[in-house]
């Protein structure tokens, strides 16, 4: 009895406030957008401008590089994401690659934007923070950061490098320098 009443109520509510109307779009919702604010006098105009993706002609994809090799591979193993398919050995010093996964203030983009698999997202995110700590991407940082490593305090002041093998380690072991203490 209760279920019949609940279903009846939901039917009535749906007829009054049709939620499905939101799913129908009359405009094409593609292309990258940029939100611009203009103020002339007392009027504030906020508009979303559609833009083409920057540097789209330089985009590298594995299937474009070697179509025959990838097609034969696809039969047995499919790669989870485009970065896995490229099989790049990305280091934390490769700032030209890492800066593509980063917002203009240096924050890592979320996975729904980057489109990476879980493992690659974790790996790239860690390497971005490594590059930031090593002071290699200091033009991509929030304004309040102490940008230059030389202007940082204490132990952050000196050069630091990182080992990419430690990214997926639970506990990072002490460096084995084989010297007597």
């Amino acid at each position, binding site marked *: 009895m209760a279920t019949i009443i609940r279903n009846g109520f939901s039917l009535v509510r749906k007829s009054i406030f049709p939620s499905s109307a939101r799913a129908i779009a009359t405009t094409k919702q593609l292309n990258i957008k940029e939100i611009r604010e203009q103020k002339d006098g007392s009027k504030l105009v906020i508009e979303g401008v559609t833009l083409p993706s920057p540097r789209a002609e330089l985009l590298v994809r594995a299937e474009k590089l070697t179509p025959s090799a990838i097609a034969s591979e696809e039969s047995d193993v499919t790669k989870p994401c485009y970065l896995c398919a490229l099989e790049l050995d990305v280091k934390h010093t490769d700032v030209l690659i890492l800066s593509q996964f980063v917002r203009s203030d240096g924050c890592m983009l979320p996975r729904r934007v980057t489109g990476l698999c879980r493992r690659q997202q974790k790996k790239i995110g860690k390497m971005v923070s490594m590059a930031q700590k090593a002071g290699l991407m200091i033009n991509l940082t929030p304004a309040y950061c102490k940008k230059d490593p030389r202007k940082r305090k204490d132990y952050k002041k000196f050069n630091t490098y990182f*080992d990419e093998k430690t990214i997926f380690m639970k506990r990072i072991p002490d460096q084995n320098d084989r010297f007597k203490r």
Partner: protein
Amino acid sequence: MSACKRVQQWATFARTWHIFDCKWQDPYQSAGVIKKYLMGMHKPIYHPLNDCGDVVVCINSREIALRGEDWRRRAYFHHTGYPGGASWTLAWELHNKDPTMIIRKAVYRAMQGNLQRRHTMERLFIYPGEDIPEDVLQNVTNQIRQLRLVPTRLDHIPEEEVKNYPKVMDYPEDYILK
């Protein structure tokens, strides 16, 4: 002994001066290489009783790089000999006090603790910056290859190269630029 052989003899036992740029190098990894040249182990005539070690000049020792959290994890121990005289100095504190000390201690520890070690260490010159005395520089005839690549900062790469670099990530179609 002919003149030619005599020159060969001189060249074999002459001390060569090597230069090593410590910029962005791990001191503990490069200590193994520096030690090899200091003791003369890179020569086929090497013998522990044979005084064939070379001279190594380390420059830019202020710019060394330690791995990960080593700057605050590594401690250097010293004891004055008096009760309560023990002290532990962190690597970054030691580097603040003397920028040549970490690399010197690394090379010292990389060698075996025998009587020869202190004399071998006398042949190691370390300078915190690039300015080294002229009389040292004019002896140098060889450069030791760096172990790690010196990384380039993104703002030091010319803008043209950044713009023309291949793109891996593309934005999704409904992304809002910030």
